């Protein structure tokens, strides 16, 4: 029988059993609304506030600086729309990069339609933003700089410290999408000059449908979701108590495993990369020259098509993803690999392997065993 190996952890991860355990009482016993004054509500409130501390601890933040959201997308949207709309002037200027997640890019595009101006800075061929372009485009009309911490497709770590310095010198707010950084590389908000930061629980073994926006103390933005006075009036909507509790537990566990993540997971990833490059001629490691998070490998097999390779690997029990989003049928080339200026044949054949702390050495061995065979077949089938 096929072994099942899940190497699509950047898409979503397995929820930690301990996180599920922590959530369970909040479905059938402590089911009150955390805004309710009665004991049922207040016990739910305690669960939420405990989780807020756990999330704050993972990031080196203060509990008061954490606003829970329904995921990374909402956190990104809330940061971008929130800052733009509370900027003093009607049409503000934003700076972001060409390799952001769609949750940032689409929000910026929506703002452009509403009369705001957005600069999309380039990246180099390793997928790292060009700092000088940020420096050149920033001005006192700039409301926000938003550059991600770790790119989800290739894992490149962006120079967040330098960017925050540039923003700070200009007195401009800085947001970073840390959805692929939190729980994977050390993020310490006490050190870094980040004003807003997005995370999402399901990327580090927490439940789907819950995330958080860090809002540095003193930073005020227009709320994105409006309604009841939840989350200290910063985000409306009945708090997802079990989800938030699960996220809190996942934050605690991620913090505990952070060191191990950098070493053991990094080693697994390195072994995967080295062996694939060695055993399969003609492969290309994307973002090779960048400082990369330890859990992502983006490898191209020029001449093949990523999606077919994905399906073939899946048939052998290995779950991966392509750089290309083709959710609506029309395969569109990865905007990240495109921004890196890569060759079409490299872009079309890219496969993303993303590891988690639940990945074992045996998993990697299995992939190394079957991958050359699968690639071999696909090459036999290709039109010469």
């Amino acid at each position, binding site marked *: 029988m096929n072994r099942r190996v899940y190497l699509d952890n950047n898409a979503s991860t397995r929820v930690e059993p301990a996180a599920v355990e922590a959530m369970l009482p909040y479905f059938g016993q402590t089911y009150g609304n955390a805004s309710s004054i009665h004991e049922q509500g207040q016990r739910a409130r305690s669960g939420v506030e405990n989780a807020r501390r756990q999330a704050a601890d993972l990031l080196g933040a203060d509990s008061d600086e954490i606003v829970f959201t329904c995921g990374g997308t909402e956190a990104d949207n809330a940061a971008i729309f929130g800052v733009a709309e509370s900027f003093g002037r009607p049409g503000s200027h934003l700076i972001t990069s060409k390799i952001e997640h769609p949750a940032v890019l689409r929000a910026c595009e929506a703002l452009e339609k509403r009369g705001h101006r957005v600069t999309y800075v380039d990246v180099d061929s390793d997928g790292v933003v060009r700092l000088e372009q940020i420096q050149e485009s920033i001005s006192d009309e700039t409301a926000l700089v938003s550059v991600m911490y770790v790119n989800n497709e290739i894992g490149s770590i962006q120079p967040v410290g330098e960017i925050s310095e540039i923003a700070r010198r200009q007195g401009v707010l800085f947001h970073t999408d840390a959805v692929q950084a939190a729980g994977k590389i050390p993020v310490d908000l006490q050190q870094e000059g980040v004003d807003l930061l997005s995370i999402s629980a399901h990327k580090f073994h927490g439940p789907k449908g819950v995330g958080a926006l860090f809002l540095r103390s003193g930073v005020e933005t227009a709320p994105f979701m409006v309604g009841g006075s939840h989350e200290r009036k910063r985000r409306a909507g009945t708090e997802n108590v079990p989800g938030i509790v699960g996220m809190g537990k996942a934050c605690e566990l991620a913090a505990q495993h952070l060191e191990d993540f950098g070493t053991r997971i990094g080693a697994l990833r390195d072994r995967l990369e080295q062996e694939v490059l060695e055993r399969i001629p003609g492969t290309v490691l994307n973002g090779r020259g960048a400082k990369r998070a330890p859990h992502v490998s983006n490898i191209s097999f020029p001449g093949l*098509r990523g*999606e*077919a390779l994905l*399906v*073939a690997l*899946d*048939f*052998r029990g290995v779950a991966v993803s392509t750089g290309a989003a*083709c959710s*609506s*049928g*029309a*395969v569109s080339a990865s905007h990240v690999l495109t921004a890196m200026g890569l060759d079409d044949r490299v872009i079309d054949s890219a496969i993303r392997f993303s590891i988690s702390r639940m990945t074992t050495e045996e998993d990697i061995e299995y992939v190394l065993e079957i991958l050359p065979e699968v690639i071999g*077949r*696909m090459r*036999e*089938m*290709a*039109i*010469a």
Partner: protein
Amino acid sequence: MYSPKVRRLVGEMPNRGRIDDATHVGQSENPICGDRVVLYLRFGRDRLEKASFQADGCTAALAAAAGLLELIVGRTALECARITTDQLLIHLEGLPRHKTHGAEVAVAALQEALTAATANPQENDPA
């Protein structure tokens, strides 16, 4: 998204590559998405004895080419010529909405093979 049949076909890729003693060769391309399929067919006395394919395209096109060969091997040229896209789609247990053109490319390659002058026309088959 993809049926178990499509997954198996792409996973196993049966009859991939080219056969040297093909009696018929046909190629088709979808100019929009760039899918390309080449079919190699070897007809015996009156039936398709052997076939293989090469493809450069999306999952649907690959599966369609491999699936089409499963459908036609053992059939007469006339029967082969009558295979429709719909029959192929049924054999594939469906394709996603926007991907049915993969089946069209494969069927077009078959038509092409059956009508075009073949690489080594030992036999003349009344297609």
